[in-house]
Protein backbone atom coordinates (compact mmCIF):
# COMPACT_ATOMS: atom_id res chain seq x y z
CA UNK A 1 0.00 0.00 0.00
CA UNK A 2 2.10 2.88 -1.21
CA UNK A 3 0.68 6.33 -1.59
CA UNK A 4 2.50 9.20 -3.10
CA UNK A 5 1.72 12.78 -2.21
CA UNK A 6 0.82 13.37 -5.86
CA UNK A 7 -2.12 10.97 -5.60
CA UNK A 8 -3.25 12.58 -2.43
CA UNK A 9 -3.37 16.02 -3.94
CA UNK A 10 -6.08 14.94 -6.28
CA UNK A 11 -8.26 14.30 -3.27
CA UNK A 12 -11.29 16.47 -4.08
CA UNK A 13 -11.99 14.32 -7.14
CA UNK A 14 -10.89 11.04 -5.63
CA UNK A 15 -14.30 9.38 -5.71
CA UNK A 16 -14.85 8.87 -9.40
CA UNK A 17 -18.58 9.35 -8.94
CA UNK A 18 -19.56 12.67 -7.42
CA UNK A 19 -20.91 12.29 -3.95
CA UNK A 20 -24.64 12.95 -3.73
CA UNK A 21 -25.76 16.26 -2.31
CA UNK A 22 -26.26 15.92 1.40
CA UNK A 23 -27.40 18.77 3.55
CA UNK A 24 -24.48 19.51 5.75
CA UNK A 25 -24.27 21.52 8.86
CA UNK A 26 -21.99 24.50 8.51
CA UNK A 27 -18.63 23.70 9.92
CA UNK A 28 -16.92 26.23 12.14
CA UNK A 29 -13.78 27.89 10.94
CA UNK A 30 -10.74 26.56 12.66
CA UNK A 31 -7.03 26.76 12.70
CA UNK A 32 -5.17 23.51 12.49
CA UNK A 33 -2.53 24.49 15.00
CA UNK A 34 -5.18 25.20 17.60
CA UNK A 35 -6.61 21.72 17.39
CA UNK A 36 -10.33 21.21 17.22
CA UNK A 37 -12.78 23.58 18.82
CA UNK A 38 -15.52 21.92 20.81
CA UNK A 39 -14.12 18.41 20.53
CA UNK A 40 -16.33 15.37 21.14
CA UNK A 41 -13.42 13.42 22.56
CA UNK A 42 -10.59 15.04 24.43
CA UNK A 43 -7.91 12.45 25.17
CA UNK A 44 -5.00 13.25 27.43
CA UNK A 45 -1.95 11.08 28.10
CA UNK A 46 -3.76 7.83 27.47
CA UNK A 47 -1.80 4.67 28.11
CA UNK A 48 -3.23 1.21 27.64
CA UNK A 49 -2.12 -2.13 28.99
CA UNK A 50 -3.01 -5.73 28.17
CA UNK A 51 -2.03 -7.25 31.50
CA UNK A 52 1.65 -6.43 31.97
CA UNK A 53 2.12 -5.49 28.33
CA UNK A 54 1.81 -1.83 27.40
CA UNK A 55 0.08 -1.33 24.08
CA UNK A 56 -0.27 2.46 23.94
CA UNK A 57 1.76 5.26 25.51
CA UNK A 58 0.73 8.83 26.25
CA UNK A 59 -1.74 9.41 23.46
CA UNK A 60 -3.23 12.90 23.49
CA UNK A 61 -5.72 13.78 20.82
CA UNK A 62 -8.88 15.80 20.26
CA UNK A 63 -11.60 14.52 17.99
CA UNK A 64 -13.92 17.11 16.55
CA UNK A 65 -17.66 16.89 16.05
CA UNK A 66 -19.12 16.24 12.63
CA UNK A 67 -15.92 15.41 10.95
CA UNK A 68 -14.16 12.28 9.94
CA UNK A 69 -10.97 11.49 11.79
CA UNK A 70 -8.80 8.74 10.35
CA UNK A 71 -6.21 6.75 12.27
CA UNK A 72 -3.43 5.32 10.13
CA UNK A 73 -0.21 3.54 10.93
CA UNK A 74 1.64 0.27 10.57
CA UNK A 75 0.39 -3.02 12.03
CA UNK A 76 0.65 -3.23 15.79
CA UNK A 77 0.75 0.54 16.29
CA UNK A 78 -2.26 0.42 18.59
CA UNK A 79 -4.74 2.26 16.39
CA UNK A 80 -7.39 -0.44 16.83
CA UNK A 81 -6.66 -0.63 20.56
CA UNK A 82 -7.11 3.13 20.73
CA UNK A 83 -10.41 3.26 18.87
CA UNK A 84 -11.72 0.51 21.15
CA UNK A 85 -10.87 2.66 24.16
CA UNK A 86 -13.25 5.30 22.82
CA UNK A 87 -16.38 3.20 23.43
CA UNK A 88 -14.91 1.10 26.21
CA UNK A 89 -14.94 -2.06 24.12
CA UNK A 90 -11.67 -2.95 25.79
CA UNK A 91 -13.61 -3.43 29.03
CA UNK A 92 -14.47 -6.84 27.62
CA UNK A 93 -10.87 -7.98 27.69
CA UNK A 94 -9.86 -9.44 31.05
CA UNK A 95 -6.75 -7.77 32.39
CA UNK A 96 -7.02 -4.71 30.15
CA UNK A 97 -6.23 -1.39 31.86
CA UNK A 98 -6.53 2.24 30.84
CA UNK A 99 -4.50 5.12 32.28
CA UNK A 100 -4.93 8.79 31.48
CA UNK A 101 -8.05 10.74 30.61
CA UNK A 102 -10.68 10.48 27.97
CA UNK A 103 -13.42 13.08 28.11
CA UNK A 104 -16.52 12.44 26.07
CA UNK A 105 -18.69 15.54 25.66
CA UNK A 106 -16.94 17.07 28.62
CA UNK A 107 -17.35 14.14 31.01
CA UNK A 108 -14.81 11.48 31.90
CA UNK A 109 -15.56 8.40 29.78
CA UNK A 110 -14.07 6.06 32.36
CA UNK A 111 -15.67 7.85 35.31
CA UNK A 112 -16.91 5.69 38.16
CA UNK A 113 -20.51 6.73 37.53
CA UNK A 114 -20.49 5.93 33.80
CA UNK A 115 -21.86 2.65 32.55
CA UNK A 116 -20.10 1.19 29.55
CA UNK A 117 -23.49 0.13 28.19
CA UNK A 118 -24.72 3.73 28.05
CA UNK A 119 -21.47 4.79 26.45
CA UNK A 120 -21.80 2.21 23.72
CA UNK A 121 -25.32 3.39 22.96
CA UNK A 122 -23.96 6.88 22.36
CA UNK A 123 -20.91 5.68 20.48
CA UNK A 124 -21.67 3.03 17.87
CA UNK A 125 -19.10 0.77 16.35
CA UNK A 126 -18.55 -0.94 13.00
CA UNK A 127 -16.02 -3.76 12.96
CA UNK A 128 -13.36 -5.10 10.59
CA UNK A 129 -15.41 -8.03 9.44
CA UNK A 130 -19.13 -7.53 8.88
CA UNK A 131 -20.72 -9.09 11.96
CA UNK A 132 -24.49 -9.23 11.50
CA UNK A 133 -26.46 -11.31 13.97
CA UNK A 134 -27.68 -14.67 12.65
CA UNK A 135 -31.18 -13.23 12.36
CA UNK A 136 -33.30 -11.58 9.71
CA UNK A 137 -32.28 -8.26 8.20
CA UNK A 138 -35.19 -6.60 9.99
CA UNK A 139 -34.34 -8.10 13.39
CA UNK A 140 -30.69 -7.16 13.04
CA UNK A 141 -31.74 -3.54 13.11
CA UNK A 142 -34.83 -3.74 15.29
CA UNK A 143 -33.33 -5.83 18.11
CA UNK A 144 -31.42 -3.09 19.89
CA UNK A 145 -34.07 -0.31 19.64
CA UNK A 146 -36.66 -2.82 20.84
CA UNK A 147 -34.54 -3.61 23.89
CA UNK A 148 -34.00 0.11 24.42
CA UNK A 149 -37.72 0.69 24.68
CA UNK A 150 -38.66 1.99 21.24
CA UNK A 151 -42.37 1.39 20.69
CA UNK A 152 -43.44 -1.36 18.37
CA UNK A 153 -45.36 1.07 16.18
CA UNK A 154 -42.24 3.13 15.60
CA UNK A 155 -39.99 0.20 14.80
CA UNK A 156 -40.88 -0.23 11.12
CA UNK A 157 -40.19 3.43 10.47
CA UNK A 158 -36.92 3.31 12.36
CA UNK A 159 -35.77 0.23 10.44
CA UNK A 160 -36.58 1.86 7.12
CA UNK A 161 -34.95 5.13 8.10
CA UNK A 162 -31.78 3.39 9.29
CA UNK A 163 -31.56 1.30 6.14
CA UNK A 164 -32.09 4.38 3.99
CA UNK A 165 -29.36 6.25 5.85
CA UNK A 166 -27.06 3.32 5.21
CA UNK A 167 -28.18 3.41 1.54
CA UNK A 168 -29.22 -0.20 1.75
CA UNK A 169 -32.99 0.20 1.71
CA UNK A 170 -33.53 -0.19 -2.03
CA UNK A 171 -31.53 -3.40 -2.09
CA UNK A 172 -33.23 -5.12 0.82
CA UNK A 173 -36.72 -3.64 1.13
CA UNK A 174 -38.31 -6.74 -0.43
CA UNK A 175 -36.45 -9.24 1.71
CA UNK A 176 -36.39 -7.81 5.19
CA UNK A 177 -37.29 -11.17 6.70
CA UNK A 178 -34.44 -13.01 5.01
CA UNK A 179 -31.32 -13.95 6.92
CA UNK A 180 -28.70 -11.23 7.10
CA UNK A 181 -26.20 -13.80 5.90
CA UNK A 182 -27.92 -13.90 2.52
CA UNK A 183 -26.42 -10.46 1.81
CA UNK A 184 -23.06 -9.85 0.19
CA UNK A 185 -20.12 -8.77 2.34
CA UNK A 186 -20.50 -5.11 1.41
CA UNK A 187 -24.23 -5.19 2.04
CA UNK A 188 -23.62 -6.88 5.39
CA UNK A 189 -21.24 -4.12 6.38
CA UNK A 190 -23.79 -1.46 5.41
CA UNK A 191 -26.36 -3.43 7.44
CA UNK A 192 -24.00 -3.20 10.39
CA UNK A 193 -23.78 0.55 9.85
CA UNK A 194 -27.58 0.75 9.69
CA UNK A 195 -27.76 -1.30 12.87
CA UNK A 196 -25.44 1.17 14.59
CA UNK A 197 -27.43 4.15 13.27
CA UNK A 198 -30.69 2.68 14.58
CA UNK A 199 -29.46 3.15 18.15
CA UNK A 200 -29.18 6.91 17.32
CA UNK A 201 -25.59 7.36 18.43
CA UNK A 202 -23.61 10.59 18.31
CA UNK A 203 -20.41 8.98 17.21
CA UNK A 204 -19.68 6.06 14.90
CA UNK A 205 -16.37 4.30 15.32
CA UNK A 206 -15.24 2.25 12.32
CA UNK A 207 -12.43 -0.22 12.78
CA UNK A 208 -11.07 -0.95 9.29
CA UNK A 209 -14.63 -1.28 7.97
CA UNK A 210 -13.52 -2.06 4.43
CA UNK A 211 -10.66 -4.46 5.07
CA UNK A 212 -12.81 -7.48 4.17
CA UNK A 213 -14.53 -5.84 1.19
CA UNK A 214 -13.85 -5.56 -2.52
CA UNK A 215 -13.13 -2.16 -4.14
CA UNK A 216 -16.70 -1.55 -5.29
CA UNK A 217 -18.16 -2.27 -1.85
CA UNK A 218 -15.38 -0.18 -0.31
CA UNK A 219 -16.36 2.74 -2.51
CA UNK A 220 -20.00 2.52 -1.41
CA UNK A 221 -18.97 2.59 2.25
CA UNK A 222 -16.73 5.61 1.67
CA UNK A 223 -19.58 7.39 -0.08
CA UNK A 224 -21.81 6.55 2.84
CA UNK A 225 -19.32 7.98 5.33
CA UNK A 226 -19.33 11.28 3.50
CA UNK A 227 -23.13 11.34 3.72
CA UNK A 228 -23.22 10.44 7.40
CA UNK A 229 -20.66 13.03 8.40
CA UNK A 230 -23.34 15.71 8.62
CA UNK A 231 -25.09 13.95 11.48
CA UNK A 232 -22.40 11.93 13.16
CA UNK A 233 -18.87 12.24 14.30
CA UNK A 234 -16.94 9.48 12.58
CA UNK A 235 -13.68 7.92 13.60
CA UNK A 236 -12.13 5.42 11.23
CA UNK A 237 -9.13 3.14 11.56
CA UNK A 238 -7.73 2.21 8.17
CA UNK A 239 -4.79 0.39 6.73
CA UNK A 240 -5.40 2.03 3.42
CA UNK A 241 -3.76 5.45 3.21
CA UNK A 242 -5.64 6.34 0.05
CA UNK A 243 -8.84 5.73 1.91
CA UNK A 244 -7.77 7.99 4.75
CA UNK A 245 -6.84 10.63 2.20
CA UNK A 246 -10.16 10.30 0.38
CA UNK A 247 -12.60 10.32 3.26
CA UNK A 248 -11.13 12.03 6.28
CA UNK A 249 -10.90 15.62 7.41
CA UNK A 250 -8.18 14.98 9.90
CA UNK A 251 -5.66 12.18 10.07
CA UNK A 252 -3.73 10.84 13.03
CA UNK A 253 -0.59 8.84 12.42
CA UNK A 254 0.33 6.15 14.95
CA UNK A 255 3.49 4.11 14.92
CA UNK A 256 5.32 1.46 16.92
CA UNK A 257 7.98 2.63 19.26
CA UNK A 258 10.53 -0.11 19.77
CA UNK A 259 12.64 0.15 22.88
CA UNK A 260 14.10 -2.05 25.61
CA UNK A 261 10.69 -2.09 27.25
CA UNK A 262 9.16 -3.69 24.17
CA UNK A 263 6.94 -2.48 21.38
CA UNK A 264 4.49 0.26 22.30
CA UNK A 265 2.06 2.17 20.12
CA UNK A 266 2.46 5.94 20.10
CA UNK A 267 0.71 8.83 18.36
CA UNK A 268 3.15 10.66 16.11
CA UNK A 269 1.06 13.53 14.89
CA UNK A 270 -2.44 14.59 13.98
CA UNK A 271 -3.49 17.29 11.58
CA UNK A 272 -5.59 18.25 8.59
CA UNK A 273 -5.54 15.29 6.24
CA UNK A 274 -4.16 17.33 3.36
CA UNK A 275 -1.30 18.56 5.53
CA UNK A 276 -0.44 15.13 6.86
CA UNK A 277 -0.18 13.72 3.37
CA UNK A 278 1.61 16.63 1.75
CA UNK A 279 3.78 18.17 4.41
CA UNK A 280 3.98 16.02 7.52
CA UNK A 281 5.92 17.51 10.37
CA UNK A 282 7.45 14.31 11.57
CA UNK A 283 10.02 12.35 9.59
CA UNK A 284 8.38 9.06 10.65
CA UNK A 285 5.08 10.12 9.10
CA UNK A 286 6.77 11.05 5.89
CA UNK A 287 8.65 7.76 5.76
CA UNK A 288 5.40 5.90 6.23
CA UNK A 289 3.30 7.72 3.67
CA UNK A 290 6.01 7.65 1.07
CA UNK A 291 6.34 3.94 1.56
CA UNK A 292 9.81 3.93 3.04
CA UNK A 293 8.50 2.18 6.14
CA UNK A 294 5.53 0.02 7.12
Amino acid at each position, binding site marked *: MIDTPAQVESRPTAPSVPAPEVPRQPRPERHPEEGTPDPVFRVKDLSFYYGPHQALRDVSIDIGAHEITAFIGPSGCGKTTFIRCL*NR*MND*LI*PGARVEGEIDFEGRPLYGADIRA*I*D*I*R*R*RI*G*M*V*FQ*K*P*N*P*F*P*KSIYDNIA*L*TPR*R*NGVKKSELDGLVEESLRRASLWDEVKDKLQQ*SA*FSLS*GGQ*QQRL*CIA*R*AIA*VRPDVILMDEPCSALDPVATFRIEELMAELKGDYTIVIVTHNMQQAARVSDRTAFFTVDVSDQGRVGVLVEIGETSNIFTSPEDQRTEDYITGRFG
Partner: protein
Amino acid sequence: MTARRIRNAAFWSACTLAFLCVAAPALSVLISVFHQALPALGWSLLLKRTNGIGIQNAILGTLVMLLGVLILAGGVGVAAGIYLAEFATGRHERLLRFFSEILAGMPAIVIGYIGYITMVVQFHWGFSLAAAVISLSILVLPYVVKTTEVALRQVPTFLREASAGLGLDSTTTVWRILIPPALPGIVSGLIVALAISTGELAPLLFTAGFSDQNPSLALVHHQVPYLTGVIFTDLALPGARAHATSAAAGAVTLILLIILIAVGRLVSRGARRATARMTI
Protein backbone atom coordinates in the same frame (compact mmCIF):
# COMPACT_ATOMS: atom_id res chain seq x y z
CA MET B 1 9.03 -54.16 -2.10
CA THR B 2 6.83 -57.20 -1.74
CA ALA B 3 7.73 -57.41 1.94
CA ARG B 4 6.46 -53.88 2.39
CA ARG B 5 3.33 -54.67 0.50
CA ILE B 6 2.70 -57.73 2.66
CA ARG B 7 3.30 -55.70 5.80
CA ASN B 8 0.87 -53.09 4.55
CA ALA B 9 -1.80 -55.68 3.83
CA ALA B 10 -1.20 -57.30 7.22
CA PHE B 11 -1.61 -53.98 8.97
CA TRP B 12 -4.92 -53.17 7.33
CA SER B 13 -6.18 -56.73 7.90
CA ALA B 14 -5.39 -56.31 11.59
CA CYS B 15 -7.30 -53.03 11.59
CA THR B 16 -10.25 -54.68 9.88
CA LEU B 17 -10.18 -57.46 12.45
CA ALA B 18 -10.09 -54.86 15.23
CA PHE B 19 -13.02 -53.07 13.67
CA LEU B 20 -14.99 -56.32 13.55
CA CYS B 21 -14.18 -56.83 17.23
CA VAL B 22 -15.74 -53.42 17.87
CA ALA B 23 -18.79 -53.96 15.72
CA ALA B 24 -19.57 -57.62 16.42
CA PRO B 25 -20.37 -57.25 20.14
CA ALA B 26 -22.71 -54.34 19.46
CA LEU B 27 -24.59 -56.35 16.84
CA SER B 28 -24.58 -59.36 19.11
CA VAL B 29 -26.06 -57.35 22.00
CA LEU B 30 -28.86 -56.01 19.80
CA ILE B 31 -29.69 -59.39 18.27
CA SER B 32 -29.42 -61.26 21.55
CA VAL B 33 -31.61 -58.87 23.51
CA PHE B 34 -34.35 -58.69 20.87
CA HIS B 35 -34.17 -62.45 20.36
CA GLN B 36 -34.55 -63.16 24.08
CA ALA B 37 -37.36 -60.63 24.25
CA LEU B 38 -39.37 -62.27 21.45
CA PRO B 39 -41.64 -64.40 23.66
CA ALA B 40 -42.69 -61.33 25.63
CA LEU B 41 -43.09 -58.88 22.77
CA GLY B 42 -46.66 -57.81 22.13
CA TRP B 43 -49.12 -55.07 22.93
CA SER B 44 -49.65 -56.47 26.42
CA LEU B 45 -46.13 -55.30 27.17
CA LEU B 46 -47.35 -51.74 26.85
CA LEU B 47 -50.85 -52.28 28.22
CA LYS B 48 -50.19 -54.45 31.29
CA ARG B 49 -48.14 -53.66 34.34
CA THR B 50 -45.37 -55.68 35.99
CA ASN B 51 -47.87 -57.51 38.17
CA GLY B 52 -49.28 -58.88 34.93
CA ILE B 53 -47.24 -59.59 31.85
CA GLY B 54 -46.34 -56.04 30.87
CA ILE B 55 -43.99 -53.25 31.75
CA GLN B 56 -46.28 -50.26 31.26
CA ASN B 57 -45.55 -48.90 34.73
CA ALA B 58 -41.79 -49.19 34.22
CA ILE B 59 -41.94 -47.36 30.87
CA LEU B 60 -44.01 -44.58 32.40
CA GLY B 61 -41.74 -44.43 35.44
CA THR B 62 -38.66 -44.06 33.27
CA LEU B 63 -40.35 -41.32 31.24
CA VAL B 64 -41.35 -39.46 34.42
CA MET B 65 -37.76 -39.66 35.66
CA LEU B 66 -36.47 -38.39 32.31
CA LEU B 67 -38.82 -35.43 32.61
CA GLY B 68 -37.48 -34.75 36.09
CA VAL B 69 -33.88 -34.97 34.90
CA LEU B 70 -34.66 -32.68 31.98
CA ILE B 71 -36.06 -30.06 34.33
CA LEU B 72 -33.49 -30.36 37.12
CA ALA B 73 -30.22 -31.27 35.40
CA GLY B 74 -31.29 -29.38 32.27
CA GLY B 75 -32.16 -26.17 34.11
CA VAL B 76 -29.19 -26.15 36.45
CA GLY B 77 -26.72 -27.49 33.89
CA VAL B 78 -27.61 -25.05 31.13
CA ALA B 79 -27.52 -22.12 33.55
CA ALA B 80 -24.16 -23.25 34.92
CA GLY B 81 -22.80 -23.72 31.40
CA ILE B 82 -23.90 -20.20 30.45
CA TYR B 83 -22.20 -18.81 33.52
CA LEU B 84 -18.96 -20.66 32.83
CA ALA B 85 -18.88 -19.68 29.16
CA GLU B 86 -19.94 -16.04 29.41
CA PHE B 87 -19.46 -14.65 32.90
CA ALA B 88 -16.86 -16.53 34.88
CA THR B 89 -13.28 -15.36 34.64
CA GLY B 90 -9.84 -16.32 35.79
CA ARG B 91 -9.18 -18.64 38.67
CA HIS B 92 -12.73 -19.01 39.85
CA GLU B 93 -13.77 -20.12 36.36
CA ARG B 94 -11.05 -22.76 36.28
CA LEU B 95 -11.98 -24.04 39.73
CA LEU B 96 -15.68 -24.38 38.93
CA ARG B 97 -14.89 -26.20 35.71
CA PHE B 98 -12.38 -28.44 37.46
CA PHE B 99 -14.87 -29.51 40.14
CA SER B 100 -17.55 -30.12 37.55
CA GLU B 101 -15.16 -32.42 35.68
CA ILE B 102 -14.27 -34.26 38.89
CA LEU B 103 -17.98 -34.79 39.49
CA ALA B 104 -18.18 -36.40 36.04
CA GLY B 105 -15.76 -39.06 37.25
CA MET B 106 -17.79 -39.95 40.34
CA PRO B 107 -18.79 -43.64 40.16
CA ALA B 108 -22.54 -44.01 39.74
CA ILE B 109 -22.84 -46.47 42.61
CA VAL B 110 -21.26 -43.94 44.99
CA ILE B 111 -23.85 -41.36 43.97
CA GLY B 112 -26.59 -43.93 44.51
CA TYR B 113 -25.21 -44.98 47.88
CA ILE B 114 -24.99 -41.43 49.20
CA GLY B 115 -28.42 -40.70 47.72
CA TYR B 116 -29.75 -43.62 49.73
CA ILE B 117 -28.01 -42.66 52.99
CA THR B 118 -29.04 -39.02 52.81
CA MET B 119 -32.29 -38.62 50.91
CA VAL B 120 -33.96 -41.98 51.47
CA VAL B 121 -32.89 -42.47 55.09
CA GLN B 122 -31.81 -39.20 56.69
CA PHE B 123 -34.39 -36.97 55.00
CA HIS B 124 -37.10 -39.64 55.39
CA TRP B 125 -38.13 -39.31 51.73
CA GLY B 126 -38.17 -43.09 51.35
CA PHE B 127 -37.60 -44.62 47.94
CA SER B 128 -39.00 -41.84 45.82
CA LEU B 129 -39.08 -39.88 42.59
CA ALA B 130 -37.23 -36.96 44.20
CA ALA B 131 -34.36 -39.13 45.43
CA ALA B 132 -34.12 -40.89 42.06
CA VAL B 133 -34.24 -37.72 39.95
CA ILE B 134 -31.71 -35.90 42.13
CA SER B 135 -29.29 -38.85 42.00
CA LEU B 136 -29.60 -39.11 38.21
CA SER B 137 -29.27 -35.35 37.84
CA ILE B 138 -26.04 -35.25 39.83
CA LEU B 139 -24.77 -38.01 37.56
CA VAL B 140 -25.51 -36.20 34.28
CA LEU B 141 -25.07 -32.58 35.43
CA PRO B 142 -21.42 -32.30 34.35
CA TYR B 143 -22.32 -33.37 30.81
CA VAL B 144 -25.00 -30.73 30.46
CA VAL B 145 -22.68 -28.08 31.88
CA LYS B 146 -19.86 -29.05 29.55
CA THR B 147 -21.90 -29.32 26.36
CA THR B 148 -23.64 -26.00 27.06
CA GLU B 149 -20.31 -24.32 27.68
CA VAL B 150 -18.74 -25.80 24.55
CA ALA B 151 -21.78 -24.86 22.43
CA LEU B 152 -21.60 -21.25 23.62
CA ARG B 153 -17.86 -21.06 23.12
CA GLN B 154 -18.35 -22.10 19.52
CA VAL B 155 -20.49 -19.04 18.90
CA PRO B 156 -18.10 -16.65 17.17
CA THR B 157 -16.72 -13.78 19.24
CA PHE B 158 -17.74 -11.24 16.63
CA LEU B 159 -21.36 -11.62 17.75
CA ARG B 160 -20.42 -10.72 21.32
CA GLU B 161 -18.50 -7.70 20.02
CA ALA B 162 -21.36 -6.63 17.79
CA SER B 163 -23.76 -6.86 20.69
CA ALA B 164 -21.50 -5.01 23.09
CA GLY B 165 -20.80 -2.37 20.46
CA LEU B 166 -24.52 -1.65 20.28
CA GLY B 167 -24.70 -1.21 24.04
CA LEU B 168 -26.85 -4.27 24.62
CA ASP B 169 -26.79 -5.53 28.20
CA SER B 170 -25.29 -8.92 28.93
CA THR B 171 -28.65 -10.62 29.58
CA THR B 172 -29.90 -9.61 26.15
CA THR B 173 -26.59 -10.57 24.60
CA VAL B 174 -26.82 -14.06 26.05
CA TRP B 175 -30.51 -14.75 25.44
CA ARG B 176 -31.04 -13.02 22.11
CA ILE B 177 -27.67 -13.25 20.42
CA LEU B 178 -25.67 -16.15 21.80
CA ILE B 179 -28.22 -18.80 22.84
CA PRO B 180 -30.06 -19.10 19.49
CA PRO B 181 -27.01 -20.24 17.49
CA ALA B 182 -25.82 -22.41 20.41
CA LEU B 183 -29.22 -24.04 20.91
CA PRO B 184 -28.67 -27.17 18.79
CA GLY B 185 -25.45 -27.91 20.69
CA ILE B 186 -27.16 -27.37 24.03
CA VAL B 187 -30.09 -29.59 23.03
CA SER B 188 -27.85 -32.43 21.90
CA GLY B 189 -26.10 -32.22 25.27
CA LEU B 190 -29.47 -32.55 26.98
CA ILE B 191 -30.27 -35.57 24.80
CA VAL B 192 -27.01 -37.23 25.84
CA ALA B 193 -27.98 -36.59 29.45
CA LEU B 194 -31.37 -38.23 28.85
CA ALA B 195 -29.74 -41.20 27.12
CA ILE B 196 -27.42 -41.75 30.08
CA SER B 197 -30.36 -41.44 32.48
CA THR B 198 -32.41 -43.96 30.50
CA GLY B 199 -29.76 -46.64 30.82
CA GLU B 200 -28.41 -46.07 34.32
CA LEU B 201 -29.31 -48.41 37.13
CA ALA B 202 -26.61 -47.99 39.79
CA PRO B 203 -27.82 -44.61 41.08
CA LEU B 204 -31.46 -45.80 41.09
CA LEU B 205 -30.96 -49.18 42.73
CA PHE B 206 -31.21 -47.67 46.22
CA THR B 207 -33.14 -44.48 45.56
CA ALA B 208 -36.13 -45.21 43.32
CA GLY B 209 -37.42 -48.44 44.82
CA PHE B 210 -39.96 -50.23 42.67
CA SER B 211 -43.69 -50.53 42.35
CA ASP B 212 -46.22 -52.49 40.35
CA GLN B 213 -48.37 -49.39 40.20
CA ASN B 214 -48.06 -46.71 37.57
CA PRO B 215 -45.92 -43.83 38.81
CA SER B 216 -47.58 -40.83 40.37
CA LEU B 217 -45.99 -37.42 40.22
CA ALA B 218 -45.63 -37.40 44.01
CA LEU B 219 -42.07 -36.42 44.81
CA VAL B 220 -41.56 -38.34 48.05
CA HIS B 221 -42.83 -41.46 49.81
CA HIS B 222 -43.89 -43.12 46.56
CA GLN B 223 -41.67 -45.71 44.92
CA VAL B 224 -41.11 -45.46 41.20
CA PRO B 225 -40.89 -48.38 38.77
CA TYR B 226 -38.38 -48.06 35.93
CA LEU B 227 -37.08 -50.06 32.97
CA THR B 228 -33.55 -50.89 34.01
CA GLY B 229 -34.96 -52.05 37.34
CA VAL B 230 -37.17 -54.57 35.52
CA ILE B 231 -34.21 -55.83 33.49
CA PHE B 232 -32.14 -56.33 36.61
CA THR B 233 -34.76 -57.89 38.89
CA ASP B 234 -36.39 -60.21 36.37
CA LEU B 235 -32.98 -61.33 35.15
CA ALA B 236 -32.36 -62.99 38.51
CA LEU B 237 -35.85 -64.46 38.85
CA PRO B 238 -36.38 -68.08 37.87
CA GLY B 239 -38.58 -68.98 34.94
CA ALA B 240 -38.70 -68.34 31.22
CA ARG B 241 -41.35 -65.63 31.53
CA ALA B 242 -39.30 -63.46 33.89
CA HIS B 243 -36.31 -63.94 31.63
CA ALA B 244 -38.32 -62.80 28.60
CA THR B 245 -39.75 -59.82 30.49
CA SER B 246 -36.23 -58.80 31.50
CA ALA B 247 -35.11 -58.97 27.87
CA ALA B 248 -38.24 -57.15 26.71
CA ALA B 249 -37.53 -54.32 29.12
CA GLY B 250 -34.00 -54.31 27.71
CA ALA B 251 -35.37 -54.13 24.18
CA VAL B 252 -37.68 -51.23 25.08
CA THR B 253 -34.74 -49.43 26.73
CA LEU B 254 -32.67 -49.91 23.58
CA ILE B 255 -35.49 -48.60 21.40
CA LEU B 256 -35.79 -45.54 23.63
CA LEU B 257 -32.03 -45.01 23.30
CA ILE B 258 -32.12 -45.42 19.53
CA ILE B 259 -34.86 -42.80 19.34
CA LEU B 260 -32.84 -40.44 21.54
CA ILE B 261 -29.66 -40.98 19.48
CA ALA B 262 -31.58 -40.39 16.24
CA VAL B 263 -33.06 -37.15 17.57
CA GLY B 264 -29.61 -36.13 18.77
CA ARG B 265 -28.20 -36.78 15.29
CA LEU B 266 -30.86 -34.61 13.68
CA VAL B 267 -30.22 -31.83 16.16
CA SER B 268 -26.45 -31.91 15.76
CA ARG B 269 -26.88 -31.84 11.99
CA GLY B 270 -28.88 -28.65 12.60
CA ALA B 271 -26.01 -27.42 14.74
CA ARG B 272 -23.52 -27.95 11.93
CA ARG B 273 -25.77 -26.04 9.54
CA ALA B 274 -26.10 -23.18 12.02
CA THR B 275 -22.32 -22.92 12.36
CA ALA B 276 -21.91 -23.08 8.59
CA ARG B 277 -24.31 -20.17 8.21
CA MET B 278 -22.34 -18.05 10.62
CA THR B 279 -19.00 -18.41 8.93
CA ILE B 280 -19.09 -16.20 5.91
